[in-house]
């Protein structure tokens, strides 16, 4: 990672000038290559979803099933982001270090991105499969929406000006409360099966053909690589922001001290 030196006379700190590193560049290229392979697998290798019933009717989701390779990993990564925020917030409240606060903030932002992607791709998948873009009252859809909204609120709370420690503590508590909804969203299809159009877990029930399972697993791997790449960059950006804020404080203090020293000098005091 390249570095730059600040010009502050009071605090000549060395901070990185970029969030990139050799590792993140390799990870980024691997993720891109993984996406290319995933698209090829999803459209060229995985057959459309068709089954034939005992009565001879051909049924299935046909080509719409390919949305699975975006929707399902997005949902898993949203859970991962919010879950990481939960753990980092817990760690912050225990150890009170900036590292955990920055980690909670960064993973929440990425969780929201994947959460919104989950809602959008779910809606697009729902139109041909369920015959509806959205159903108010469907517990799976609504609890997922509420989960994303809670973490959008979490990010907004972090923007409210306040002392850094107060802001971190306040947002950590919100994350702990909001993360409870992760369990509710995930289990809603089992707890309220008569209040949702959403199917139950396919993977747990092992009702999936080999090609689809392989491609879905591959999409998880590519998604995780993307998540790690985004998290590394976002964490480093947030860390640099915190360093800049710290430098500004140091700079302001140095200005005040210089003014006080000058005033003492003019009065002939040591």
């Amino acid at each position, binding site marked *: 990672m390249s570095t730059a030196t600040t010009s*502050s*006379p009071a605090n000549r700190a060395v901070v990185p000038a970029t969030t990139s590193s050799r590792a993140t560049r390799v990870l980024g290229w691997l993720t891109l290559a993984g996406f290319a392979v995933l698209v090829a697998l999803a459209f060229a290798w995985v057959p459309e*979803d*068709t*089954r*034939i*019933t005992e*009565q*001879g*009717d*051909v*049924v*299935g*989701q*046909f080509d719409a*099933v390919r949305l699975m390779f975006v929707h399902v990993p997005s949902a898993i990564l949203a859970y991962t982001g919010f879950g990481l925020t939960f753990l980092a917030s817990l760690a912050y409240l225990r150890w009170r270090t900036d590292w955990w606060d920055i980690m909670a903030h960064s993973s929440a932002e990425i969780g929201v991105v994947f959460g919104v992607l989950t809602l959008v791709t779910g809606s697009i998948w729902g139109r*041909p*499969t*369920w*015959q*509806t873009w959205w*159903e*108010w*009252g*469907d517990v799976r859809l*609504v609890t997922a929406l*509420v989960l994303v*909204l*809670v973490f*959008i*609120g979490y990010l*907004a*709370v*972090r*923007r*409210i*000006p306040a002392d850094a420690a107060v802001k971190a503590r306040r947002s950590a508590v919100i994350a702990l409360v909001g993360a409870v909804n992760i369990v509710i969203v995930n289990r809603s299809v089992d707890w309220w099966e*008569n*209040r949702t*159009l959403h*199917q*139950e*877990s*396919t993977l747990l*029930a092992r*009702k*999936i*053909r080999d090609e*689809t399972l392989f491609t879905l697993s591959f999409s998880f791997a590519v998604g995780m690589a993307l998540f790690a790449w985004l998290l590394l960059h976002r964490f480093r950006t947030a860390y640099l922001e915190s360093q*800049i804020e710290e430098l*500004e404080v140091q700079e302001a203090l*140095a*200005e005040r001290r*210089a*003014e*006080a020293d*000058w*005033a003492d000098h*003019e*009065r002939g005091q040591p």
Partner: protein
Amino acid sequence: MTDTPTDEAVDPGEPMDLSPRPGRPARRGIRRWVPVLVVALVAVVIGIVLWRVLADATLVFREVDDAVERREELGDDRFRMMGSPVSGSRQEVTLEDGRPAVAFSVTLDGVVADVVHIGGLSDQFQTGVPVVIDGHWVRSRQFARAADDGWYFASDRMLIKHDNDYRVDNQDRIDDAEERGQYE
């Protein structure tokens, strides 16, 4: 930043002014009230969402066996019923007012009910794939299908509740069906 303040900044003859100075402008120009507004909006939206969920009592799906068992009790109340279409039961019909409709039967756990649905059927209307139909019971034998029990469920909205099965069975029969042009 300057290392030596100018005379305008500090007057040696006067006591130093230690009163707080105006804060520096925010680096990204985010006003204080914007995040507060976002938090308030999020809270309002969550409230509306929960209110809509709690208010919409028709969203509970009654399964066919439950809906048939409680038919007298339900009367002409509107509700949602879930069941799987019975193979070969579908028939185009015309209502008394001249509107076209589709009559078919749905089943679950061995209980069958006849349905008359106003509106088109999607490609996902398939045997064995559960549908959620929105409507009410009507006592009539006019559109009797597989159940033929003197009632039909008059529906005007249909959703599909797809299951979690993505396995393939009878690939050879699927290939045959494709060759016959049963689906593309």
